[in-house]
């Protein structure tokens, strides 16, 4: 695509200024993209490992729970969990990574883990719950990291689009405009010189 530019010295200067700006912007964005990629790479490695750990532990904890449940009367199970007094809540604050606001969770646990009577449930159950509680903390950390990945990768896509727009559209466009102006100006200059030479010739005779 060629844009209409008037072939004047003024316009040439303007376009050159614009080109400088675009190049600087491009370099900055490119740097941002590289840094984002680096951060993302680290995060992904971490999350993939963490996820595997959490999944394994969660499955283990669940198995424990199922076992504990097997040795307890079903109606007591219902009872035991009906009256849970505990609340698990999180407070979310934000941390800025590459100007992307990613969440940081602070977990808070209130109440008793085992709020049921000890008579009708086995000790296995207490252990299973404690287990699960520990995994849950990790799950929250995992959630935090995964959210960060999602947000950062969105930013990454945006940055990539901008870098590409600058690199493949805006900058070549301006370069072409500059070339056009330059050629037109030098053509005019040549025209002028030959005209002067011709006039000089006419006057001399």
């Amino acid at each position, binding site marked *: 695509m060629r844009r209409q530019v008037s072939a004047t010295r003024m316009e040439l200067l303007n376009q050159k200024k614009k080109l400088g700006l675009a190049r600087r912007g491009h370099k900055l964005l490119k740097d941002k993209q590289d840094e984002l990629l680096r951060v*993302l790479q680290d995060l992904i490695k971490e999350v993939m490992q963490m996820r595997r750990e*959490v999944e394994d532990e969660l*499955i283990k904890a669940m198995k424990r729970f199922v076992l504990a449940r097997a040795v307890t009367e079903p109606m007591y199970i219902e009872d035991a969990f009906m009256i*849970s007094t505990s609340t*698990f*809540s999180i407070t979310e604050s934000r941390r800025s990574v590459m100007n992307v606001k990613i969440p940081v969770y602070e977990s808070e646990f209130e109440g008793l883990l085992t709020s049921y009577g000890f008579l009708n449930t086995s000790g296995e159950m207490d252990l299973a719950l404690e287990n699960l509680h520990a995994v849950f903390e990790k799950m929250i950390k995992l*959630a935090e990291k995964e959210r960060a990945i999602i947000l950062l*990768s969105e930013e990454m896509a945006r940055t990539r689009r901008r870098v590409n727009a600058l690199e493949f559209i805006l900058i070549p466009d301006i370069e072409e405009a500059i070339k056009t102006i330059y050629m037109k100006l030098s053509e005019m200059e040549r025209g002028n010189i030959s005209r002067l030479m011709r006039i000089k010739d006419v006057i001399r005779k």
Partner: protein
Amino acid sequence: MKIAVIGPESGIIPFRAIGADTYPAGEKPDEIVREVLGKDYGIVFITEDTINRLEERKIIMETEINVVPIPGVGGETGFGRERIRALIKRAVGIDLGGEK
């Protein structure tokens, strides 16, 4: 903010004991998920088998709430890792999450 867990009734009971809100997915998981996402939860954990039963997976992708897949009673199906991989692939253009 509170935390919600969605999944099959039997698999999510213990989460109630450790202080999360639990929602059994039941027959129509889509409705439950939509309802939960409409509330003010900080994190929503959904078991993978529930996700697989969703008619519209879009609803868990396009939300401001942090939705995290967890393995269900039947073990993990790899959806959690797959999700991250797909995301990265779209954003970066390269497959970064591959097994190394």
